[in-house]
């Protein structure tokens, strides 16, 4: 197979584009897709500071690398989840990347800083660990961005992630979630802007990008994610993609172009009804936000024992 651009030997084929690329032109392709995503959706304005949510995996390290390559002021935030060897190795990958590239990595440790970890939270809530993990990440990436003066939180959600989430939302017609599923969630009181600059690139492309750029990411999957619904949706979509290349991109991009606007009002109604958490001040539809309730259930926060004056008005 030859590179679509220079006709030299290709190192990767992308079936939905019916094209192969050599290393140089594949890297250029990735940069162009990210540049286009940022421009089309006004994700990052000149001079803005970006906080990249870094897991040590391929997508977040590729995103960080691409943003810095494209000239953005992007630092990383790694969240220690307390998932045994996986957390040890993923943290090491994130730190090694930051050291090698000379970029700034912030770290927050759930156990040391908030008194619980993901296995403990999953046990306490009797729910899948991915729920507690996602909740903790959404809360803390946003909170750290606001505290430390970042304008934007960048996450490594790729085309496959977004298509799988879309499938899950459509299967249950989750109108509010469909209204919020977008490459950009604008800033609002208590929320930094959240962007997904990789949404035009598949996860196979992101893994290839890391291999070709010499980015040493953690290859092993989180052991607590095994068998979750999201992986099942990806499996279904990849079966479709194998039979009909381009299906995932058509599904996601078609929704963004022709379906998303129909659900915006549903998302708006939920966001309009938010107040402030009595404990931490984060936006919440109830008295106490989901993150503080999670800490409470994991035994890391005793709201009832807090003096009333320490609770926020």
């Amino acid at each position, binding site marked *: 197979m030859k590179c679509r651009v220079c006709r030299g030997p290709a*190192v990767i084929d992308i079936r939905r584009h019916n094209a192969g690329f050599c290393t140089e032109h594949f890297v250029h392709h990735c940069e162009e897709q990210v540049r286009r995503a940022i421009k089309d959706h006004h994700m990052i304005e000149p001079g803005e500071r970006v906080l990249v949510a870094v897991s040590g995996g391929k997508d977040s390290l590729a995103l960080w690398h691409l943003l810095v390559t494209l000239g953005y002021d992007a630092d990383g935030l790694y969240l220690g989840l307390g998932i045994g060897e996986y957390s040890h190795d993923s943290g090491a990958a994130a730190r090694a990347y930051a050291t090698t590239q000379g970029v700034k990595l912030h770290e927050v440790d759930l156990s040391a800083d908030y008194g619980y970890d993901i296995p403990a939270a999953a046990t306490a809530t009797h729910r899948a660990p991915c729920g507690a*993990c996602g909740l903790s990440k959404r809360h803390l990436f946003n909170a750290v961005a606001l505290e430390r003066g970042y304008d934007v939180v960048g996450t490594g*959600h790729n085309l496959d992630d977004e298509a799988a989430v879309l499938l899950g939302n459509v299967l249950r017609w989750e109108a509010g979630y469909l209204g919020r599923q977008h490459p950009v969630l604008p800033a609002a009181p208590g929320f930094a802007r959240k962007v997904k600059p990789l949404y035009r690139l598949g996860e196979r492309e992101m893994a290839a990008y890391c291999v070709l750029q010499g980015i040493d990411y953690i290859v092993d999957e989180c052991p607590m994610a095994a068998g979750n619904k999201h992986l099942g949706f990806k499996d279904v979509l990849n079966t479709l993609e194998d039979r009909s290349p381009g299906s995932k991109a058509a599904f996601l991009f078609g929704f963004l172009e022709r379906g998303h606007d129909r659900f915006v009002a549903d998302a708006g109604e939920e966001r309009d009804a938010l107040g402030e958490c009595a404990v931490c001040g984060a936006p919440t539809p109830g008295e106490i936000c989901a993150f503080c309730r999670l800490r409470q259930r994991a035994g890391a926060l005793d709201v009832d024992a807090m003096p009333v004056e320490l609770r926020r008005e």
Partner: protein
Amino acid sequence: MLLRNPKREVEIEGPLTVAALLVRLELNPESVLVICGDTLVTRDARLAHDDTVEIRSVISGGAR
């Protein structure tokens, strides 16, 4: 042919193409990268009998 990642050793007679290897292993080409030695290879690349090949899963499933 020696397959790495996930850790296993499978002896497969070469030569054969990457596409044929993935069919033989019942793997979806969308879900993996194929690395021969230190080099990424496309689905039409021919693999020799004494090649060491890594089939690397690209699927992430955790919360972000």
